[in-house]
């Protein structure tokens, strides 16, 4: 029975490789639009290559990578040790990690709020529930409503790790299904505050962020994010089974990290990689 299964698996594997030029990409919803745009432009230039992009979440991407149902896994966070272990169990090697873009997170408040800047420590107090009123952080006497992302989102984890320094979000934080939903909620709520990708801006205003009380307040512009002076930013990743990282897939991975691929990153609203991380 085992042997039969093995032969069947082998047969599937060979048919898959016979269709070389077919690349499947799965994973993070944060990266979905960017990945689709990359695929679209690349397929326009290489008529014989077909790229299929699906979202679902970074976790879904890693699961597909270890089940070998996808070639590339998009992720808005680093792989967890458990996921790496699962990959090793599946294909006896660590998945190769590529940084493919930079994302700066903005903090949003209602356009009518007089608050213009906050420090990381103040943000942490607000989102852990220590500061419950805007007057605690130098604003008007108005209760703060927190808008957060679902805990399945890579953005949520990133914010928790880098802004809250591992502390828990206040239980009263309402969770929204996406950055657009957060902005919509904040734009309707004078006491609201939320966070999300830098790409979306209308309806609410973003704050300038200070690393600590003495440092200057920084605007999340491309220049500041790439230089690293804006404190809330992260890399976006693509993971691949090293055995597949050659031929068509290797070329594609090189291309998305080239100057040409990185130009598209900018069009979609994320920030391109610094020159030393790009491929030539």
């Amino acid at each position: 029975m085992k042997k039969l299964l093995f032969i069947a698996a082998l047969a599937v594997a060979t048919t898959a490789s016979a269709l070389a030029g077919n690349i499947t990409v799965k994973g993070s919803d944060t990266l979905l639009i960017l990945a689709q745009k990359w695929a679209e432009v690349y397929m326009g230039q290489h008529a014989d290559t077909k790229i299929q992009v699906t979202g679902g979440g970074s976790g879904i991407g890693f699961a597909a990578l270890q089940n070998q149902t996808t070639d590339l896994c998009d992720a808005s966070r680093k792989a967890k040790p458990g996921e790496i272990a699962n990959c090793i169990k599946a294909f006896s090697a660590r998945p190769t990690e590529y940084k493919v873009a930079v994302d700066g997170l903005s903090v949003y408040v209602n356009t009518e709020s007089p608050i213009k800047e906050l420090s990381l420590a103040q943000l942490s107090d607000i989102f852990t529930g220590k500061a419950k009123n805007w007057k605690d952080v130098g604003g008007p006497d108005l209760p703060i409503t927190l808008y957060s992302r679902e805990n399945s989102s890579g953005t949520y984890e990133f914010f928790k790790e880098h802004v809250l320094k591992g502390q828990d979000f206040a239980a009263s934080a309402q969770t929204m299904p996406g950055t657009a939903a957060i902005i919509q909620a904040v734009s309707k709520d004078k006491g609201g505050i939320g966070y999300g990708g830098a790409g979306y801006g209308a309806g609410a205003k973003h704050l300038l962020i200070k690393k600590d009380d003495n440092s200057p307040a920084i605007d999340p512009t491309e220049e500041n994010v790439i230089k690293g002076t804006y404190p809330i930013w992260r890399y976006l990743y693509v993971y691949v089974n090293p055995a597949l990282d050659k031929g068509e897939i290797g070329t594609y991975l090189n291309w998305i990290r080239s100057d040409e691929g990185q130009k598209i990153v900018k069009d979609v609203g994320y920030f391109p990689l610094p020159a030393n991380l790009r491929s030539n």
Partner: protein
Amino acid sequence: MGIRRGHRAHPGEWLAEKFIFLVSLTAILMVFLIFAFVTREALPLITGEVSSAAVQPVIPVADMDKIPAEKLRIYLELTPSQFATMDHDTKKLLMETKVEGAQDAPDNKDAKINTIEWRYLLFPYQWSGYDKPVYIWQPVSEIKKYNIIPIVIGSIKTTLIALFFAVPLALGAAIYVSQLASPKLKEYIKPAIEMLSGIPSVVAGFFALIFMATVLQKVFGYESRLNAFVAGIALGFAIIPVVFSIAEDALTSVPRNFTQAALALGASRWQAAWQVVLPAALPGVFAAIVLGFGRAIGETMIVLMASGNASIMSGNIFDSARTITATIAAELAEAVFGGDHYRILFLIGALLFLVTFLTNMAGELVMNRLKGKLEGKK
């Protein structure tokens, strides 16, 4: 061609009959399969085989060849066949990931706690950084906190609000339509109410999120725009047709001579409906409410969109709430497959399944007994 009594089944009819029988069997089989699958995924939790502690004991990579094979296999979480076929280098890679995992582990007094033990799932605990014992659902965290009480309360809260809103309306409508309305009016009202069930729940949720939340906030003036109350009302609209059509069925199945006897004794139509027909159909009305409960607690999309999804321990209906269904829908996509979080989600899924299964069964049983009683079988 008329129908002859006791004619032999045509081969085609025989085939069709058996086919339908098989289909109904598959339905039962599916229910069992789903339940078996859901509980199988949650089983290691129930038996306490796995540990979610952030800090796990680590064996240095250099000691790999010194420890017994069976111990190594358990340490690396491999099945015997996986262990037998895996080469030495791959095992070494796995050992390295274990060490990395330990290096990432937080420096925290709770890091050694296995947070998926029952006492952490059901009872409050004072985690580091908190000033009192709390019920906390924070599954993505340095110390993963899986207390399911806040989301159970969220589910119960929204469901009860939905029932308090929907049951009086649906019952009133059912009494009116079955007892008081003229046959012509009935022809319009009944399909109109049942049409409510044709609204896709995602559309109802969208409507609640954008429109109802704003209107209700203006009327009641509470603080948080999305909350258990908004979700409960929207959920109410989803269960009105369920409660209505079952209650209406029960009321209609009360024999006509009950009403006629009451009217002959000088009761008004209203008295007959309220004091004779309704008590006779009471078990059916109860079944309608129970089935409405099952539908409300299992509904996902509306609560996901309109409840705000904050897992607060609070009895206030104007606070945001997170339900079991919304939690599963929102979190399953990112949970590490086969991990603790994944298994906990299956556990609460199994819990939900059990609750809806039992309520539906109770509803059906009561309904059947009522039918038997009214038809004079008992």
